[in-house]
């Protein structure tokens, strides 16, 4: 594989990522008071974002074809239930991922 291509691609991806992480701080820099609406968003957004991310991870699931998203539904339910009962992130992630891999490799 072409090393120059890989390095330039990584540089672009790193650059865009850093830009997105830093931009809000630059826009609302200094001692100026942050607008109330932004402070409010800062409090409520974290909850919305996590919901958004879960859906984002499922974007390539095809409900109408393929496996109809059944492995995803099963694995996510397992993760959520284990997390709710045991409050152990490691346990939830490992069991959920192994279940999912077994489901799509051997069952579906």
């Amino acid at each position, binding site marked *: *594989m072409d*090393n120059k*291509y*890989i390095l330039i*691609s*990584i540089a*672009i*991806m*790193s650059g*865009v*990522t*850093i830009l*997105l*992480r*830093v*931009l*809000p*701080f630059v826009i609302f820099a200094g001692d100026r008071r*942050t607008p109330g*609406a*932004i402070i*409010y*968003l*800062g*409090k*409520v*957004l*974290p*909850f*919305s*974002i*996590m*919901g*958004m*991310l*879960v*859906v*984002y*991870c*499922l*974007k*390539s699931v095809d409900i109408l074809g393929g496996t109809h998203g059944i492995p*995803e539904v099963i*694995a*996510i339910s397992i*993760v*959520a239930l284990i*997390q*709710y009962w045991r409050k152990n*992130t*490691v346990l*939830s*992630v*490992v069991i*959920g*991922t192994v279940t*999912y*891999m077994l489901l*799509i*490799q051997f069952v579906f």
Partner: protein
Amino acid sequence: MEKKAIFKQAFNDTIPVLAGYIVLGIGFGILLRAKGIGIIYALVMSIFMYAGSMQYAAVGLISGGASYLVVAMTTLMVNCRHLFYGISMIEKYKGMGIVKPYLMFAMTDETYSLVVNSTRYNKKEDRRKYYTIVSALDHSYWITGCMLGALIGSLIKINTEGIDFSLTALFVTIFVEQWRSNKNHLSAILGVVITAVCLIVFGPEIFLIPSMILITVFLLLIRKKEEPKYG
């Protein structure tokens, strides 16, 4: 407060991320090797990009020979959620001094979920230490995981199909924890519903941007009713 005590606290708080990042990092490293990309790039990406889902996407982009424009646009789509993180950390990261650039750079989903929920320290100096240690620890876990995976992937052949589900699982666990920690579920439900509707309407390529705009608009519309509930 003593630095050692803060370190201990920070380490305790990051243990779930330690496990998650090792698993996710290994998944990434194995995937990278399976697509024939060199180990050195696992190191470069985990240090300088330090973005879980984007690194998974990067393997696909690079091995598929995507154009630089596609590479840039995909990064923008996948990581635009970081704009949100920045917005919610503006107040907390005020006056962080020399470490602020690193704190901003190192704010991944998981580090963000730790620092945004942290109300442990009252003194700014203590908070600064805590944020820095949490950020650096998480970063080191990620680099370790990615390198482990790349090494494992070089040595043995495993069927990795589905390993990227670990990322989904991690988000689900954070979602569950947030649900538990907050009595008010409206903003969480809004996030899920709006994004799902946008996915159906706009398709998987561009739905994140309309989702973010609509979530922001909706949250602002219900501000009068919602803001008092968040103290």
